[in-house]
């Protein structure tokens, strides 16, 4: 008997909550904003889920997600890109010119494919509610690599209207910020490449001291190349790259 009563109460509660979400849903500005926030959170969560892996891989592979043959050194199972190529019989090397925009373009493509796979079903938010949701056919991704972090912005214009068109909310950009100091490490890498192209070597001791030990720079020498691994002392993210050498 009590079991049956319990089941009935549970069902009623479920119906109540469902009805509240649908039948009793008022399509006012506040509720529309609430739905937009839910959608936005879903998109940002999706970006957060899929965005970290390519960013980490970009750092481990020296700024290139898919390095070509003869442009990387295999070390510790990682294809570490050369950012400076050997000039025969010269201590200096030839700058490959990795730019921040190059990395941003690669991340845009990589993130787009992944984000498409985890995007929430936005139109399902209108199910059972007196609202319409307009979404574009395609989305764009814009990555901005800053000093301390990386912004991954999905450009995807969503418009939520009440069915009577009295209320409307819209949002076109959804940004997730990753606490990854890629820009900062890139600048340090640029300084290293500058030294390698000018004098053929880089002294990490003086550099780390000058920067008050904010960076940790490890230098490995798998013959005949060099590998630099850069980290900030307050962040575990790693940017590493290779400088091509030649046998003595």
């Amino acid at each position, binding site marked *: 008997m009590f079991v049956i009563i319990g089941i009935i109460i549970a069902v009623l509660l479920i119906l109540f909550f469902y009805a509240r979400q649908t039948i009793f849903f008022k399509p006012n500005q506040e509720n529309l904003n609430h739905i937009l926030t839910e959608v936005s959170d879903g998109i940002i969560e999706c970006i957060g889920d899929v965005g970290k892996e390519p960013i980490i891989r970009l750092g481990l592979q020296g700024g290139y997600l898919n390095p070509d043959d003869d442009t990387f050194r295999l070390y510790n*199972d990682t294809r570490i890109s050369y950012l400076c190529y050997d000039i025969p019989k010269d201590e200096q090397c030839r700058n490959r010119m990795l730019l921040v925009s190059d990395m941003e373009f690669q991340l845009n493509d990589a993130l787009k494919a992944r984000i498409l796979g985890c995007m929430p079903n936005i139109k399902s938010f209108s199910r059972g509610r007196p609202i319409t949701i307009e979404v574009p056919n395609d989305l764009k991704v814009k990555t901005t690599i800053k*000093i301390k972090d990386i912004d991954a912005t999905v450009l995807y214009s969503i418009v939520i209207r009440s069915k009577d068109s009295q209320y409307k909310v819209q949002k076109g950009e959804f940004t997730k910020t990753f606490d990854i100091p890629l820009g900062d490490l890139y600048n340090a890498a640029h300084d290293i490449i500058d030294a390698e192209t000018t004098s053929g070597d880089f002294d*990490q001791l003086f550099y780390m001291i000058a920067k008050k030990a904010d960076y940790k720079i490890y230098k490995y020498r798998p013959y005949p190349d060099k590998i630099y691994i850069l980290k900030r002392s307050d962040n575990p993210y790693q940017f590493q790259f290779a400088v091509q050498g030649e046998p003595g």
Partner: protein
Amino acid sequence: MASLIKTKAFFEIILVVMSIFFISSLNVSAQQPSEQSCCEKTKSGESCVYTSSENCDRRFKSSNEECSESSFCETGCCFNDDGTCSNSASKSTCESKSGLFNKGISCSSIQLCNKGCCILGDNYFMATKQQCQEKSNLYKNLKMEFNPDITDEFTCISQLQNKERGCCVQESECIYTDRLSCTEGSMPPEQSLVQSPWQQSENSQQASATGNAVSPLVNQQNSQQSNQQQNYIGTIFETGKYCSQVPLCGCKAKHHKGCYDGDVYWYDSCNNREGIAQDCDFSNNNLCSKDTLKCESLDCKTTFDKKAINGNDIVGYDGVPRRNGESWCEYDGAVGFGQDLVGSRHYRHLCISGEEFIEPCKDFREEFCLQATGKLQTFNILEAACISNRWKDCATTCNTAKDKKTSAQIKLAMQYDRTCCEDPMKSCFWSAANNENIKKISGDAQKELSSACTDLNSNEPSCQPGDYQSSDPGNGVCIPIVPPGLKFWNDENIEQAKKTEQATADPVKTCETAKRTCTTYFYKNLLTGYDWKKVNTICLKKDFALSAMSYCKSLGDCGTKYNIAGKFSKLAFKCETSDGPCKGNKHGLSYNFINLDWEKEVGGLDAYTKAKPLQTKDFDLNGYKGMGSPDNPYGLANMLVTSIGGIAGTVISGVGLLMPVTTTATTTVAASMPAITLGGEGALAGISGTGGAASGAATSVSWVPLFGILIALVVAAFTLVLQLTAETDQIDITISCLPWQPPYGNKDCEKCTNKEIMEKLNFDTCSEYKCKSLSQNCKWIPENEGSNRTSCITTNINDVNSPKIKPWPEALTKGFKITEFQNGYQITPSPEGYALVSFGILTDEPATCKYALEPNIKYDSMPADFGDVFIDNKHMLTLSAIPNKLNEIYIKCKDANNIANEADYLIKFKARGGKDLTPPIILSSSIKNSAVISGTSTPLSLSINEPSRCRYSNKETTYEQMENPMVCSTDSAINSPSAKFTCSTNLKINEGTNIFYFKCSDLSNNINKESYILTLTGSPQLKITSTSPSGELDLNTITIEATTEGGSNDGIAKCSYTLSSKTYLFNQTDSTEHSTDLPQLSIGSYSIPISCKDSIGNSADATISFKVTRDITPPNLMFVYKQDNTLTISTDEPSACEYSNKDFAFGSGTLMDGQDKDHTLTIEKTKYSIICSDSFNNTGSLFTIYP
């Protein structure tokens, strides 16, 4: 006739000779196809890459030279469009990124590249002017300033601190900042574009303290104050006040501490910085610690104390505390002057902020570590650097004296050699002759020489005291300070050989410079009592072999040496004598170079495991001046004995018959006689210091009184008797210097990685050079380099044992256990059906392993890898358990010697039926993600771990809403834990990007929540846009051509044509333009099908149609007539006609006058044979005319 034959023969000889030259020059000038090229652009879009020629995009340039030598990839400064500058950038790369290229100059000479202090609101950072402008465009509300006069970061950032600061009270927040930022409304710190290191730490402290960069006023506890704040509108800047001093803000003073600019500061409860709590001094190695919020020392409290293989302390100064910023050298053993262990390397250690870093110097000792003592305030610290080892000239360019013949030449050469050797830009050491040991050896040799001079009554100049003294302190020999490592092994594959190819450090050539030959001379005559006397006996003593080896070792990895594992190898010692074996007795002098106890002679391992560091007083990173050196007892001995031996040789070779006096004799013969003068002047044969050649000089004769003649005659007679009764002999000993060879038959390969350093400093010391030095059996695995897998493994060329397999319990999924039996184990308890189970095996030697589901399959035929493909000792696999079945996995492994197991190793487990609650897993697809597809559709199959039904769609949606079902094998009777159930379909592909979403549902209706996404690119269709020829052709040679467009590679394709049922490739193809010459075709119509295909299979077909209307009939004779002395013939078409008096072939006759239809000849004979041929090479038959 004879002359004709001669002429012909002569002509033929000339022809043959010329053709030889021609063909050989063809060979010389013929270009070998180059495998590697510099590509201006590769197919994947990279620019200026030196790679395989196949990777080059043919629309751009490529060159067989290195990129830096090609015009399109020459280097210079590139001013990028984001305002940064790239030094030594390639022209093509710069231009492809829209940069401004400045050829051949450094960016420091370009004003645009000069950095200054960029001020943007309250952000201060170093940037170029354009960079500063670019940033300013992003933050238009901030005022931008650029100060080019500030060129260092520290000065730039300290501008911030000099600004007038105070509490900025705004609508809902209080921020401690500068006036400008407050009045212009700068962005909150978390949105700062770029921050100084100190700003970053401040912000992170703020962020970590409260979770917000700035605490809004609404967080205040005092509600009354809060109400007041919420009612406030506007901006106030309270100059010189902390926000805790502004009642409106309601912030509590000195609430907590934080790090800022390396010091400890107070922060109020709103997270605004206040006064300094503890002033740390970075120059005194103190800095604010984020953990303790106190000034902590940055020094390294302990450092790694490296021990040698025999437990010796290599250097006495390591393992001690180090100051922040200090660096020092570490070695693997003794360093310099031939002592470096084979496989050893130098390292530079650093102490930075309490952490010890290792920077290895370049391998093969192409760099060595040099250190000096410096001063940091009142402290003495070490400073070290890795310096390029410029050793190549030491034993060659700076050792010219060894090739000189006369003592004068030797002396001069020595001076040059010493200057050359002591050049600070070289890494050489002048090993001088003032060593006591060398003096003793030299002294003994000189004594023997003097004795010979007396016994043989020689007047050689070198017999006189005061001439060339080999132990002259100015003399010496030049050797590398640090002998280089050499590649003393042959690579197993070409790719690996390319990586470590040392083009100029040929080990054989490097070592053979130290090859030494020494000759001991024997003589006897009346004065010696006919007992054998010896000169230069050092050659037969072990001292000579030791000195030869000492010099040999100093040149590199040559001769007899210890390796880094402490194993001695004498495999590279080679001795030869002119008498045969290197052991024997010659005229009472015994010698034995075969049984030398090398290890004892060189001082044992202990002598090579203690390093005296390479140190210089004048520390200069760009060069070095002056080096201390340890003793080197045998360094010069080998040179000295050679030089003395040479002199002795000349003396000994002077023994023989007396020659007549000459007036103008000048001889250069090894065994020439000294000319004797009868009193007065007389020049004797000149002496060469390295023995052998002698040159005579003119002598003169003068008359003397009679008494003098008598005495001279007596002396001459005596000398004659001496020389006639003298006998000589010699023995040559040659000690070769060969590249060092590692020892055999040991298991030292695992010592390549120093486990202690790996544990304490996470640094792997193993390299190919070190690995190969440990043993002949060591194999280098390049794929494992830098990973935690073994990169140096033991292989035994005589090893006949396959790897031994045993269980690896740690790899087993939790909750299971192993029950071992012979040659296998069982996993219990039974897992659920379709559950993923992980398990593993260990092998006693590095191996690769495979498995099958049936027994007794040979290793090479096994279908799947057990674990990954790397050679390793540990192997792990994860499989899905087939329900209601005994799952059996049969495993075999193969070692580095290619010896595989014969017997299977079995792992088994029984899986229960169980309730399947897990959705299916799509393991893989038959097409790789991001693949480029040709055509409008492509078959696809997915591998799934269990029987399922799958669907797909072009948009992300639920499984039920996916429109396209796939065809799946749901046969759960396929009994295989690794069985890949498949679902297949035919995907429609559009041009451009195609994204497909796949979801599956298993037989228990468990459905994937997340889609398996496949992105494919449909390549544009390949098209043949034009063909030729067409219409009517009357040519002999017909060329067919085609042009292609589209496809996966912008029209680049391979085309072929079919003629007479045979298909041929176009001669010019594999691009967008295709052409080929057809063989001669007869008259008629032709439709030649052509087919083109690109690299991914896009194809296009077309037909080339044309008609051949070429004339194929020869000219016909129309009429013949004779007029006066002229014979005229007419043909029916323009032609060329030839005649002769006998039968001939067209081409070998005499051409008749006239090219059109009429042809004439002057009648001289009674019979003419004529042949005519038209312009289409239709030749008629011969006809005869009797005029």
